[in-house]
């Protein structure tokens, strides 16, 4: 059993995020990106018979998928909510492929959207986190990633300049992405290190900015993919893993569940990291990219710092990484932040990267990351010539 080549991404829809949500609603954004993705695929709404949705933080609710499907006017043979944090969009892709491969449906709409209701970060809703984390101020994601970064620096000598390089190269990519939130000014390593320290050792420009937006992807069976407008981007490898929620109780701060997720994905594909033409690792923070590249096997454990310093991560470089700018420059519209890595992988393989197109891009590694290096969903995507 394998999902290799059983389904393909054939259409995407993605909005340029906005900082202030204004009159937007999450369901309204979902409708916009869903319509865009269906049209992009060359399908009609009636062709959609599967539905995977992420629940927006700004408009939460139980029994969400049927409600959202009703708003969109969908009649579907498979529907579900995917709730694995920032890994949800990547997780949706293989779940859609699995449902298609099982014969349950033929064309799955995967959609996420959210509004940035800026303000107080509420204490966690999970009871054990309310009890053992919130009283000490372990609220929100910043603290956990800062502690990962400190430990990585301690164990491997990773430097602040190496971490900052990730934000700098990704910004260079964002300058060529009209959809990115921060695409008007290049960054230098000193700019990053001179930005305000938020949680030692992470500076402001190493941390995602919440924005409002949405994105959608159509995953289809080989039969449907044949009549798609775009060149199909095939899922040829997938892996998922989680071993903790709160980072305190993870086996390690520096070796993450990316490792088993990526190993499974590469094994299914029969390929190796060196075969990839570009990578789209989830980037909520600079350190996330470093740990992900190590654990996915692009460099040795502990060498992620020197690795990002020595390689050119821009679209024209030797390891194009988050060519859309990453969330650090694209912005994080809730779960649509994590979908931006998937849409960018698809866009590049379809040859629609515009000014930031990676030459001869045929293979991409995409990783979704939830919580504090908790849920991991790795994908290998391929464009067949």
């Amino acid at each position, binding site marked *: 059993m394998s999902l290799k080549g059983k389904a393909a991404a054939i259409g995407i829809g993605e909005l340029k995020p906005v900082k202030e949500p204004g009159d937007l609603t999450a369901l309204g954004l979902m409708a916009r990106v869903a319509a865009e993705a269906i049209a992009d695929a060359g399908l009609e709404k009636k062709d959609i018979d599967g539905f995977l949705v992420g629940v927006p933080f700004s408009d939460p609710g139980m029994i969400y998928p049927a409600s959202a499907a009703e708003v969109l006017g969908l009649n579907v043979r498979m529907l579900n909510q995917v709730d694995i944090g920032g890994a949800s969009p990547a997780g949706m892709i293989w779940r859609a492929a699995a449902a298609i491969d099982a014969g349950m449906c033929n064309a799955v709409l995967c959609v996420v959207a959210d509004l940035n209701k800026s303000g*107080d970060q509420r*204490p966690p809703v999970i009871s054990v986190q309310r*009890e053992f984390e919130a009283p*000490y*101020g372990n609220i929100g994601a910043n603290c956990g990633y800062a502690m990962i970064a400190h*430990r990585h*620096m301690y164990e491997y000598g990773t430097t602040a300049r190496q971490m900052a390089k990730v934000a700098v190269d990704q910004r260079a990519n964002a300058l060529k992405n009209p959809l990115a939130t921060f695409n008007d000014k290049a960054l230098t390593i000193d700019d990053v290190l001179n930005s305000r320290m938020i949680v*030692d050792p992470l500076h402001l420009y190493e941390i995602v900015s919440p924005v409002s937006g949405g994105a959608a992807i159509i995953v289809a069976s080989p039969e449907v993919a044949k009549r798609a407008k775009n060149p199909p981007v095939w899922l040829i490898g997938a892996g998922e893993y989680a071993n903790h929620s709160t980072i305190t*109780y993870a086996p390690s701060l520096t070796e993450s569940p990316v490792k088993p997720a990526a190993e499974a994905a590469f094994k299914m594909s029969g390929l190796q990291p060196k075969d990839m033409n570009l990578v789209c690792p989830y980037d909520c923070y600079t350190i996330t990219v470093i740990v992900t590249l190590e654990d996915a096997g692009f460099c040795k454990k502990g060498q992620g710092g020197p690795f990002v310093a020595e390689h050119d991560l821009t679209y024209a470089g030797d390891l194009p990484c988050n060519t859309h700018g990453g969330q650090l420059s694209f912005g994080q519209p809730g779960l649509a932040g994590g979908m931006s890595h998937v849409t960018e992988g698809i866009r590049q393989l379809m040859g629609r990267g515009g000014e930031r197109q990676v030459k001869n891009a045929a293979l991409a590694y995409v990783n979704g990351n939830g919580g504090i290096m908790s849920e991991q969903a790795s994908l290998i995507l391929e464009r067949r010539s």
Partner: protein
Amino acid sequence: MSEYFKPLPKPTPTSRPFWEAAKRHELTIQRCGACKSFVYYPRDRCPKCFSDQLSWQRVSGRGKLYSYTVVRRASARSFADGPYVLGIVELDEGPRMTTNIVAAPEKVRVEMPVEVYFDDVTPDRTLVKFKPA
């Protein structure tokens, strides 16, 4: 005493002995009778071997700082009253705990030895923090 406005733990039947011990300024955590692991936070079954043979045991209160951060800008308003040190302490007995390090931020280092410090934040509730040993 000024009003305390940060989140407070609400003990459950599973965790009540932990918080009651903290109020007596004792650090007690669970230990598994089957695989002998120490367990934190409190569980109904051992997360390693899934045995239900968990009992409470007083531990040394000593450990080292696995990692930390100085939160200069808190995500939650209730913690916006100044920088604080959030840390993960690895107890000598093995388990890791989320906690605060009661020390000047510039004195805090990864792997520094620490010892437990009981902070009676309200008349009813004591938080388990650590300080440099």
